[in-house]
């Protein structure tokens, strides 16, 4: 399942509900998941808020393609990808990637693969509202590059 949502979400609640609803009891031996959360600090500045823009349509299409690719590479039972868009505050979860499989190798590798592809290719853009040290005025800036995942 792939969800793009505008409201805050609780990753643990989403994982719990999805796992119950997927009806795979006894089948899955492994669940690996990753949650990316908004920090209150970036490149030395205090981040007060963030707007996440995306390309509606292409986002879902691209994420669907990543998940499909992961399913071809590894033996997976279920996948869940949730990405937040719109206005965010520090400590808000931004993204959740979860994979269920019979054995742990598949879940570990596929969850990281999906996450890295999402970070480097899925059409989302972050704009931060920051207060630099020694200045009171807030300014907005586009995040130019994601940190490296490997």
């Amino acid at each position, binding site marked *: 399942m792939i969800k793009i949502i505008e409201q805050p979400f609780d990753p643990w609640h989403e994982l719990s509900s999805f796992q119950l609803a997927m009806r795979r009891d006894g089948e899955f031996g492994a669940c690996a998941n990753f949650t990316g959360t908004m920090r209150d600090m970036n490149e030395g500045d205090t981040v007060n808020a963030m707007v996440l*823009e995306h390309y509606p349509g292409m986002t879902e299409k691209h994420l669907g393609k990543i998940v499909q690719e992961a399913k071809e590479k590894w033996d997976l039972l279920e996948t869940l990808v949730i990405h937040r868009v719109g206005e965010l505050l520090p400590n808000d979860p931004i993204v959740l990637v979860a994979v269920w499989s019979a054995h742990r190798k598949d879940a570990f590798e596929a969850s990281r693969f999906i996450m890295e592809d999402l970070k480097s290719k*899925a059409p989302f853009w972050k704009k931060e509202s920051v207060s630099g040290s020694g200045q009171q005025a807030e300014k907005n800036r586009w995040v130019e590059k994601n940190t490296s995942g490997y």
Partner: protein
Amino acid sequence: MTQTKAEKAMTIKVLYFASLRELLGCNEELISEDGLNTIGDVWQRVSDGKNVTQQVLYSINQEYAQAESLVKAGDEVAFFPPVTGG
């Protein structure tokens, strides 16, 4: 913008995102396909005279494309900076 079917058939829809949207002051426009073979040609036309120094990524019909990828009337193309989600 209201278009007839015939007009739409001759145009390409162009979308801009994030910092590029702000730089060009435009979310979305329709341009005539006249004389446009590749998405690189589209970019040349829409960025002509603008001072775009940043890296620009291309997509055609919501899939990543290269400068030499072909476009045709009815396509949706987009230009945007490197992505920063997740």
